[in-house]
Protein backbone atom coordinates (compact mmCIF):
# COMPACT_ATOMS: atom_id res chain seq x y z
CA UNK A 1 0.00 0.00 0.00
CA UNK A 2 1.27 3.46 -0.83
CA UNK A 3 2.38 5.58 2.11
CA UNK A 4 0.02 8.30 0.83
CA UNK A 5 -2.83 6.18 2.10
CA UNK A 6 -1.05 4.15 4.77
CA UNK A 7 -0.13 7.08 7.04
CA UNK A 8 -3.67 8.57 7.07
CA UNK A 9 -4.97 5.10 7.99
CA UNK A 10 -2.66 4.95 11.00
CA UNK A 11 -3.87 8.41 12.07
CA UNK A 12 -7.43 7.22 11.46
CA UNK A 13 -7.01 4.26 13.83
CA UNK A 14 -5.47 6.44 16.55
CA UNK A 15 -8.10 9.17 16.24
CA UNK A 16 -10.97 6.68 16.18
CA UNK A 17 -9.74 5.16 19.43
CA UNK A 18 -9.53 8.63 20.99
CA UNK A 19 -12.94 9.55 19.62
CA UNK A 20 -14.69 6.47 20.99
CA UNK A 21 -12.99 6.42 24.39
CA UNK A 22 -11.77 9.84 25.54
CA UNK A 23 -13.93 12.31 23.65
CA UNK A 24 -17.12 11.04 25.25
CA UNK A 25 -16.10 12.98 28.33
CA UNK A 26 -16.41 16.28 26.46
CA UNK A 27 -19.66 15.50 24.68
CA UNK A 28 -22.24 18.28 24.73
CA UNK A 29 -25.79 17.02 24.66
CA UNK A 30 -24.63 13.81 23.01
CA UNK A 31 -22.63 15.60 20.34
CA UNK A 32 -18.90 14.87 20.04
CA UNK A 33 -16.39 16.47 17.69
CA UNK A 34 -15.56 14.34 14.65
CA UNK A 35 -11.77 13.94 14.60
CA UNK A 36 -11.97 11.69 11.56
CA UNK A 37 -13.58 14.52 9.63
CA UNK A 38 -10.78 16.92 10.56
CA UNK A 39 -8.22 14.38 9.38
CA UNK A 40 -10.11 13.84 6.14
CA UNK A 41 -10.43 17.56 5.41
CA UNK A 42 -6.74 18.04 6.13
CA UNK A 43 -5.60 15.33 3.73
CA UNK A 44 -8.15 16.31 1.07
CA UNK A 45 -6.82 19.87 1.01
CA UNK A 46 -3.22 18.69 1.20
CA UNK A 47 -3.60 16.35 -1.79
CA UNK A 48 -6.51 16.66 -4.21
CA UNK A 49 -10.20 16.05 -4.71
CA UNK A 50 -9.94 12.48 -6.00
CA UNK A 51 -7.61 11.54 -3.16
CA UNK A 52 -10.08 13.12 -0.70
CA UNK A 53 -12.99 11.13 -2.11
CA UNK A 54 -11.14 7.80 -2.02
CA UNK A 55 -9.82 8.48 1.47
CA UNK A 56 -13.32 9.51 2.60
CA UNK A 57 -14.71 6.29 1.16
CA UNK A 58 -12.13 4.18 3.02
CA UNK A 59 -12.57 6.12 6.30
CA UNK A 60 -16.34 5.85 6.05
CA UNK A 61 -16.26 2.14 5.31
CA UNK A 62 -13.98 1.38 8.26
CA UNK A 63 -15.99 3.69 10.55
CA UNK A 64 -19.27 1.94 9.66
CA UNK A 65 -17.75 -1.51 10.14
CA UNK A 66 -16.18 -0.71 13.49
CA UNK A 67 -18.86 1.38 15.16
CA UNK A 68 -21.87 -0.63 14.05
CA UNK A 69 -23.65 2.19 12.27
CA UNK A 70 -25.57 1.50 9.07
CA UNK A 71 -22.96 0.22 6.60
CA UNK A 72 -22.80 2.71 3.75
CA UNK A 73 -24.08 5.80 5.56
CA UNK A 74 -20.62 7.05 6.57
CA UNK A 75 -19.23 5.80 3.27
CA UNK A 76 -21.46 8.22 1.38
CA UNK A 77 -21.15 11.12 3.82
CA UNK A 78 -17.37 10.92 4.10
CA UNK A 79 -16.97 10.51 0.31
CA UNK A 80 -19.02 13.67 -0.28
CA UNK A 81 -17.04 15.41 2.49
CA UNK A 82 -13.75 14.48 0.81
CA UNK A 83 -15.13 15.74 -2.48
CA UNK A 84 -16.17 19.06 -0.90
CA UNK A 85 -12.89 19.55 0.97
CA UNK A 86 -11.00 18.73 -2.23
CA UNK A 87 -12.38 21.89 -3.80
CA UNK A 88 -10.02 23.81 -1.52
CA UNK A 89 -6.99 21.85 -2.69
CA UNK A 90 -5.44 24.64 -4.70
CA UNK A 91 -1.64 24.56 -5.01
CA UNK A 92 -1.34 28.30 -4.53
CA UNK A 93 -3.66 28.58 -1.56
CA UNK A 94 -3.06 25.22 0.14
CA UNK A 95 -0.84 26.66 2.86
CA UNK A 96 -3.27 29.46 3.55
CA UNK A 97 -6.21 27.05 3.85
CA UNK A 98 -4.38 24.69 6.19
CA UNK A 99 -2.74 27.17 8.51
CA UNK A 100 -5.19 30.03 8.87
CA UNK A 101 -8.70 30.74 10.11
CA UNK A 102 -9.90 29.31 6.80
CA UNK A 103 -9.31 25.73 7.98
CA UNK A 104 -11.95 25.76 10.76
CA UNK A 105 -14.37 27.37 8.32
CA UNK A 106 -13.77 24.61 5.76
CA UNK A 107 -14.16 22.02 8.53
CA UNK A 108 -17.42 23.72 9.54
CA UNK A 109 -18.77 23.52 5.99
CA UNK A 110 -17.65 19.91 5.59
CA UNK A 111 -18.90 19.02 9.08
CA UNK A 112 -22.36 20.33 8.30
CA UNK A 113 -22.49 18.44 5.01
CA UNK A 114 -21.09 15.25 6.58
CA UNK A 115 -23.48 15.24 9.55
CA UNK A 116 -26.44 16.10 7.38
CA UNK A 117 -25.76 13.42 4.78
CA UNK A 118 -24.97 10.83 7.45
CA UNK A 119 -28.20 11.59 9.30
CA UNK A 120 -30.18 11.55 6.08
CA UNK A 121 -29.03 8.05 5.18
CA UNK A 122 -28.84 6.54 8.66
CA UNK A 123 -32.15 7.87 9.96
CA UNK A 124 -35.08 5.61 9.28
CA UNK A 125 -37.49 8.34 10.37
CA UNK A 126 -38.44 9.99 7.11
CA UNK A 127 -40.94 12.25 8.81
CA UNK A 128 -38.12 14.24 10.38
CA UNK A 129 -38.14 17.66 8.79
CA UNK A 130 -35.37 18.95 6.58
CA UNK A 131 -34.87 22.03 8.73
CA UNK A 132 -34.55 19.88 11.84
CA UNK A 133 -31.99 17.61 10.16
CA UNK A 134 -30.05 20.64 9.00
CA UNK A 135 -30.04 22.39 12.36
CA UNK A 136 -29.85 19.66 14.96
CA UNK A 137 -27.80 17.11 13.09
CA UNK A 138 -25.81 19.30 10.75
CA UNK A 139 -24.87 22.65 12.23
CA UNK A 140 -24.30 21.73 15.89
CA UNK A 141 -21.89 18.83 15.27
CA UNK A 142 -20.22 20.89 12.52
CA UNK A 143 -19.67 23.84 14.86
CA UNK A 144 -18.22 21.64 17.59
CA UNK A 145 -15.87 19.87 15.17
CA UNK A 146 -14.80 23.20 13.63
CA UNK A 147 -13.97 24.65 17.04
CA UNK A 148 -11.77 21.64 17.82
CA UNK A 149 -10.06 21.96 14.43
CA UNK A 150 -8.65 25.32 15.51
CA UNK A 151 -6.10 23.28 17.45
CA UNK A 152 -4.80 21.87 14.15
CA UNK A 153 -4.16 25.39 12.87
CA UNK A 154 -2.12 26.30 15.95
CA UNK A 155 0.08 23.23 15.79
CA UNK A 156 0.47 23.10 12.01
CA UNK A 157 4.17 23.22 11.03
CA UNK A 158 4.48 25.74 8.19
CA UNK A 159 7.37 23.93 6.52
CA UNK A 160 5.30 20.80 5.88
CA UNK A 161 3.76 22.38 2.76
CA UNK A 162 6.96 23.39 1.07
Amino acid at each position, binding site marked *: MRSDYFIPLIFFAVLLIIQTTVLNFISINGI*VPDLILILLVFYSIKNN*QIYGMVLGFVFGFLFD*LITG*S*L*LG*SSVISKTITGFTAGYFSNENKREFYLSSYAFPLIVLLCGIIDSFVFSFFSSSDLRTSFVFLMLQQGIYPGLYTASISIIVVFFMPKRSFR
Partner: protein
Amino acid sequence: MIRFFSKIWDGFKEYFILLFLIIIGLILISVNQKPAVKSVRAVAFGTFASISSLVSDVVNIGQLKSENMRLRERNAELMLQMNKLREYGIINEELKGLVKLKDTTSYPLIPVRIVSKSLSTSQNTITLLGGSNNGLKPGMPVVNDQGLLGVILSTSNDYSIARTLKNMDLKLTVKDERSRLDAIMKWNGEDLVMVNVPKTYDIKPGDRIMTSELSSIISIPIPVGIVMELSKVETGIFNEVKIKPYVNFARAENVFVVGIVESKQKNQLELNFFNRK
Protein backbone atom coordinates in the same frame (compact mmCIF):
# COMPACT_ATOMS: atom_id res chain seq x y z
CA MET B 1 -14.62 9.25 -30.65
CA ILE B 2 -11.97 8.14 -28.15
CA ARG B 3 -10.70 11.69 -28.00
CA PHE B 4 -14.22 12.89 -27.28
CA PHE B 5 -14.65 10.50 -24.35
CA SER B 6 -11.14 11.26 -23.16
CA LYS B 7 -12.01 14.94 -23.13
CA ILE B 8 -15.19 14.32 -21.15
CA TRP B 9 -13.31 12.11 -18.70
CA ASP B 10 -10.60 14.71 -18.19
CA GLY B 11 -13.15 17.42 -17.59
CA PHE B 12 -15.48 15.54 -15.29
CA LYS B 13 -13.50 12.65 -13.79
CA GLU B 14 -14.02 13.89 -10.21
CA TYR B 15 -17.77 13.77 -10.70
CA PHE B 16 -17.67 10.31 -12.29
CA ILE B 17 -15.60 8.97 -9.41
CA LEU B 18 -17.90 10.63 -6.88
CA LEU B 19 -20.93 9.08 -8.57
CA PHE B 20 -19.24 5.67 -8.67
CA LEU B 21 -18.31 5.78 -4.98
CA ILE B 22 -21.81 6.93 -3.96
CA ILE B 23 -23.35 4.06 -5.94
CA ILE B 24 -21.06 1.63 -4.08
CA GLY B 25 -22.19 3.29 -0.82
CA LEU B 26 -25.84 2.78 -1.75
CA ILE B 27 -25.15 -0.86 -2.62
CA LEU B 28 -23.50 -1.29 0.79
CA ILE B 29 -26.61 0.14 2.48
CA SER B 30 -28.75 -2.42 0.66
CA VAL B 31 -26.61 -5.39 1.79
CA ASN B 32 -26.50 -4.40 5.46
CA GLN B 33 -28.50 -7.36 6.72
CA LYS B 34 -26.59 -10.03 4.74
CA PRO B 35 -24.98 -12.66 7.05
CA ALA B 36 -21.60 -12.24 5.33
CA VAL B 37 -21.60 -8.51 6.09
CA LYS B 38 -22.56 -9.20 9.69
CA SER B 39 -19.69 -11.64 10.15
CA VAL B 40 -17.17 -9.21 8.60
CA ARG B 41 -18.49 -6.52 10.90
CA ALA B 42 -18.14 -8.82 13.94
CA VAL B 43 -14.48 -9.42 13.10
CA ALA B 44 -13.82 -5.72 12.48
CA PHE B 45 -15.34 -4.36 15.66
CA GLY B 46 -13.95 -7.26 17.70
CA THR B 47 -10.42 -6.42 16.57
CA PHE B 48 -10.88 -2.72 17.12
CA ALA B 49 -12.56 -3.16 20.50
CA SER B 50 -9.66 -5.26 21.81
CA ILE B 51 -7.37 -2.27 21.16
CA SER B 52 -9.74 0.41 22.40
CA SER B 53 -10.37 -1.58 25.60
CA LEU B 54 -6.68 -1.13 26.45
CA VAL B 55 -7.02 2.63 26.06
CA SER B 56 -10.25 2.55 27.98
CA ASP B 57 -8.42 0.74 30.81
CA VAL B 58 -5.85 3.49 30.99
CA VAL B 59 -8.55 6.16 31.01
CA ASN B 60 -10.39 4.45 33.83
CA ILE B 61 -7.35 3.37 35.79
CA GLY B 62 -8.17 5.58 38.77
CA GLN B 63 -11.35 3.75 39.49
CA LEU B 64 -11.77 1.08 42.07
CA LYS B 65 -13.05 -1.36 39.54
CA SER B 66 -13.78 -4.47 41.53
CA GLU B 67 -15.63 -2.76 44.34
CA ASN B 68 -17.58 -0.66 41.92
CA MET B 69 -18.55 -3.72 39.94
CA ARG B 70 -19.80 -5.51 43.04
CA LEU B 71 -21.80 -2.50 44.21
CA ARG B 72 -23.23 -1.82 40.77
CA GLU B 73 -24.26 -5.43 40.40
CA ARG B 74 -26.02 -5.22 43.75
CA ASN B 75 -27.61 -1.93 42.73
CA ALA B 76 -28.86 -3.35 39.45
CA GLU B 77 -30.30 -6.40 41.18
CA LEU B 78 -32.06 -4.17 43.69
CA MET B 79 -33.34 -1.93 40.92
CA LEU B 80 -34.89 -4.88 39.10
CA GLN B 81 -36.27 -6.28 42.36
CA MET B 82 -37.69 -2.92 43.37
CA ASN B 83 -39.28 -2.47 39.99
CA LYS B 84 -40.81 -5.92 40.25
CA LEU B 85 -42.21 -5.07 43.68
CA ARG B 86 -43.59 -1.81 42.35
CA GLU B 87 -45.31 -3.78 39.63
CA TYR B 88 -46.79 -6.15 42.17
CA GLY B 89 -47.98 -3.23 44.29
CA ILE B 90 -49.89 -1.67 41.43
CA ILE B 91 -51.39 -4.97 40.35
CA ASN B 92 -52.47 -5.60 43.93
CA GLU B 93 -54.26 -2.28 43.99
CA GLU B 94 -56.08 -3.25 40.83
CA LEU B 95 -58.27 -6.01 42.20
CA LYS B 96 -55.51 -8.58 42.49
CA GLY B 97 -54.71 -8.01 46.12
CA LEU B 98 -55.75 -11.46 47.18
CA VAL B 99 -54.15 -13.35 44.36
CA LYS B 100 -50.75 -14.69 45.16
CA LEU B 101 -48.55 -14.23 42.18
CA LYS B 102 -45.82 -16.73 42.15
CA ASP B 103 -42.47 -15.29 41.30
CA THR B 104 -41.11 -17.70 38.78
CA THR B 105 -38.83 -15.29 37.04
CA SER B 106 -35.26 -14.56 37.93
CA TYR B 107 -33.16 -12.32 35.75
CA PRO B 108 -29.56 -13.42 35.19
CA LEU B 109 -27.24 -10.41 35.06
CA ILE B 110 -24.00 -10.54 33.08
CA PRO B 111 -21.58 -7.77 34.11
CA VAL B 112 -19.84 -6.09 31.16
CA ARG B 113 -17.89 -2.91 30.59
CA ILE B 114 -18.35 -0.33 27.87
CA VAL B 115 -15.09 -0.10 25.93
CA SER B 116 -16.14 2.49 23.39
CA LYS B 117 -19.05 4.68 22.49
CA SER B 118 -20.06 6.00 19.12
CA LEU B 119 -22.10 9.05 19.96
CA SER B 120 -24.01 10.72 17.16
CA THR B 121 -27.32 12.48 17.08
CA SER B 122 -29.08 9.66 15.28
CA GLN B 123 -27.18 6.39 15.72
CA ASN B 124 -25.78 5.97 19.21
CA THR B 125 -24.04 2.65 19.72
CA ILE B 126 -21.79 1.25 22.45
CA THR B 127 -19.22 -1.53 22.29
CA LEU B 128 -19.23 -3.91 25.24
CA LEU B 129 -16.40 -6.02 26.61
CA GLY B 130 -18.30 -9.31 26.49
CA GLY B 131 -19.48 -11.42 23.61
CA SER B 132 -20.92 -14.77 22.69
CA ASN B 133 -18.29 -16.49 24.87
CA ASN B 134 -19.86 -14.73 27.87
CA GLY B 135 -23.35 -15.81 26.90
CA LEU B 136 -24.35 -12.54 25.24
CA LYS B 137 -26.77 -12.73 22.32
CA PRO B 138 -28.37 -10.17 20.01
CA GLY B 139 -31.63 -8.93 21.49
CA MET B 140 -30.56 -9.00 25.15
CA PRO B 141 -31.31 -5.79 27.08
CA VAL B 142 -28.43 -3.72 28.49
CA VAL B 143 -29.15 -2.10 31.88
CA ASN B 144 -27.35 -0.35 34.70
CA ASP B 145 -28.46 0.61 38.19
CA GLN B 146 -30.55 3.46 36.78
CA GLY B 147 -32.48 1.63 34.07
CA LEU B 148 -32.44 0.53 30.45
CA LEU B 149 -29.53 1.58 28.20
CA GLY B 150 -30.26 -0.32 25.04
CA VAL B 151 -30.35 -3.65 23.26
CA ILE B 152 -27.53 -5.80 21.91
CA LEU B 153 -27.35 -5.61 18.13
CA SER B 154 -24.46 -7.87 17.23
CA THR B 155 -21.87 -10.04 18.97
CA SER B 156 -18.42 -11.42 18.25
CA ASN B 157 -16.63 -13.92 20.48
CA ASP B 158 -15.46 -11.37 23.06
CA TYR B 159 -17.25 -8.14 22.18
CA SER B 160 -20.73 -6.88 21.42
CA ILE B 161 -22.31 -3.82 19.91
CA ALA B 162 -25.50 -2.46 21.45
CA ARG B 163 -27.91 0.16 20.19
CA THR B 164 -28.71 2.64 22.94
CA LEU B 165 -32.12 4.21 23.40
CA LYS B 166 -30.72 7.23 21.55
CA ASN B 167 -30.70 5.32 18.27
CA MET B 168 -33.38 6.03 15.70
CA ASP B 169 -33.48 2.38 14.64
CA LEU B 170 -34.49 1.15 18.10
CA LYS B 171 -38.21 1.32 18.77
CA LEU B 172 -39.66 -0.21 21.93
CA THR B 173 -43.11 -0.79 23.33
CA VAL B 174 -43.25 0.93 26.71
CA LYS B 175 -45.83 1.38 29.40
CA ASP B 176 -46.91 4.15 31.75
CA GLU B 177 -46.46 2.57 35.17
CA ARG B 178 -49.37 4.45 36.75
CA SER B 179 -52.03 4.29 34.04
CA ARG B 180 -50.79 0.99 32.49
CA LEU B 181 -51.13 2.39 28.97
CA ASP B 182 -48.78 1.19 26.22
CA ALA B 183 -47.17 3.14 23.39
CA ILE B 184 -44.24 2.98 21.02
CA MET B 185 -41.14 4.84 22.16
CA LYS B 186 -38.32 5.97 19.88
CA TRP B 187 -35.49 8.47 19.60
CA ASN B 188 -36.33 11.27 17.18
CA GLY B 189 -32.82 12.69 17.04
CA GLU B 190 -33.48 15.21 19.77
CA ASP B 191 -35.71 13.59 22.40
CA LEU B 192 -36.90 10.22 23.53
CA VAL B 193 -40.60 10.26 22.67
CA MET B 194 -43.69 8.10 22.86
CA VAL B 195 -45.39 8.60 19.51
CA ASN B 196 -48.99 8.45 18.36
CA VAL B 197 -50.37 8.58 21.88
CA PRO B 198 -54.14 9.21 21.70
CA LYS B 199 -55.20 12.39 23.45
CA THR B 200 -57.60 10.35 25.56
CA TYR B 201 -54.70 8.47 27.19
CA ASP B 202 -54.12 9.28 30.82
CA ILE B 203 -50.43 10.18 30.77
CA LYS B 204 -49.10 13.00 32.91
CA PRO B 205 -45.70 14.64 33.44
CA GLY B 206 -43.86 12.81 36.20
CA ASP B 207 -45.20 9.36 35.32
CA ARG B 208 -42.63 6.57 35.29
CA ILE B 209 -42.16 4.77 31.97
CA MET B 210 -40.98 1.18 31.75
CA THR B 211 -40.73 -1.51 29.10
CA SER B 212 -44.00 -3.25 28.39
CA GLU B 213 -44.85 -6.93 28.45
CA LEU B 214 -46.31 -6.39 24.96
CA SER B 215 -42.85 -5.70 23.57
CA SER B 216 -41.47 -8.30 21.20
CA ILE B 217 -37.94 -7.16 22.12
CA ILE B 218 -37.97 -6.68 25.92
CA SER B 219 -41.01 -8.02 27.73
CA ILE B 220 -39.79 -7.71 31.32
CA PRO B 221 -40.41 -4.44 33.18
CA ILE B 222 -37.26 -2.33 33.13
CA PRO B 223 -37.37 1.38 34.02
CA VAL B 224 -36.81 3.61 31.01
CA GLY B 225 -37.49 7.18 32.10
CA ILE B 226 -39.91 9.75 33.32
CA VAL B 227 -42.53 11.74 31.39
CA MET B 228 -41.31 15.30 30.88
CA GLU B 229 -44.06 16.89 28.84
CA LEU B 230 -46.79 16.29 26.28
CA SER B 231 -46.27 17.99 22.95
CA LYS B 232 -48.51 18.51 19.90
CA VAL B 233 -51.36 18.96 22.39
CA GLU B 234 -53.10 21.66 20.37
CA THR B 235 -53.19 19.91 16.99
CA GLY B 236 -54.15 16.52 15.63
CA ILE B 237 -55.59 13.54 17.43
CA PHE B 238 -52.33 12.22 18.85
CA ASN B 239 -49.94 13.54 21.45
CA GLU B 240 -46.19 13.08 21.52
CA VAL B 241 -44.87 12.35 24.99
CA LYS B 242 -41.32 13.45 25.77
CA ILE B 243 -39.42 11.16 28.11
CA LYS B 244 -36.32 11.93 30.13
CA PRO B 245 -34.30 8.69 30.31
CA TYR B 246 -33.08 7.59 33.73
CA VAL B 247 -29.73 6.55 32.31
CA ASN B 248 -26.99 9.06 31.68
CA PHE B 249 -25.58 7.60 28.46
CA ALA B 250 -22.44 9.71 28.42
CA ARG B 251 -21.42 8.65 31.94
CA ALA B 252 -22.31 4.95 31.76
CA GLU B 253 -19.24 2.71 31.99
CA ASN B 254 -20.08 -0.52 33.78
CA VAL B 255 -23.35 -2.11 32.76
CA PHE B 256 -25.19 -5.40 32.87
CA VAL B 257 -26.71 -7.49 30.16
CA VAL B 258 -29.91 -9.19 31.26
CA GLY B 259 -29.38 -12.74 30.04
CA ILE B 260 -32.73 -13.24 28.42
CA VAL B 261 -33.83 -13.10 24.79
CA GLU B 262 -37.45 -12.74 23.86
CA SER B 263 -38.74 -16.15 22.85
CA LYS B 264 -39.21 -16.56 19.11
CA GLN B 265 -41.56 -19.42 19.91
CA LYS B 266 -43.77 -17.07 21.90
CA ASN B 267 -43.78 -14.46 19.15
CA GLN B 268 -44.64 -17.06 16.54
CA LEU B 269 -47.42 -18.44 18.72
CA GLU B 270 -48.90 -14.96 19.14
CA LEU B 271 -48.55 -14.26 15.45
CA ASN B 272 -50.29 -17.52 14.55
CA PHE B 273 -53.04 -16.68 17.01
CA PHE B 274 -53.67 -13.32 15.40
CA ASN B 275 -53.48 -14.77 11.89
CA ARG B 276 -55.88 -17.64 12.43
CA LYS B 277 -59.15 -17.61 10.52
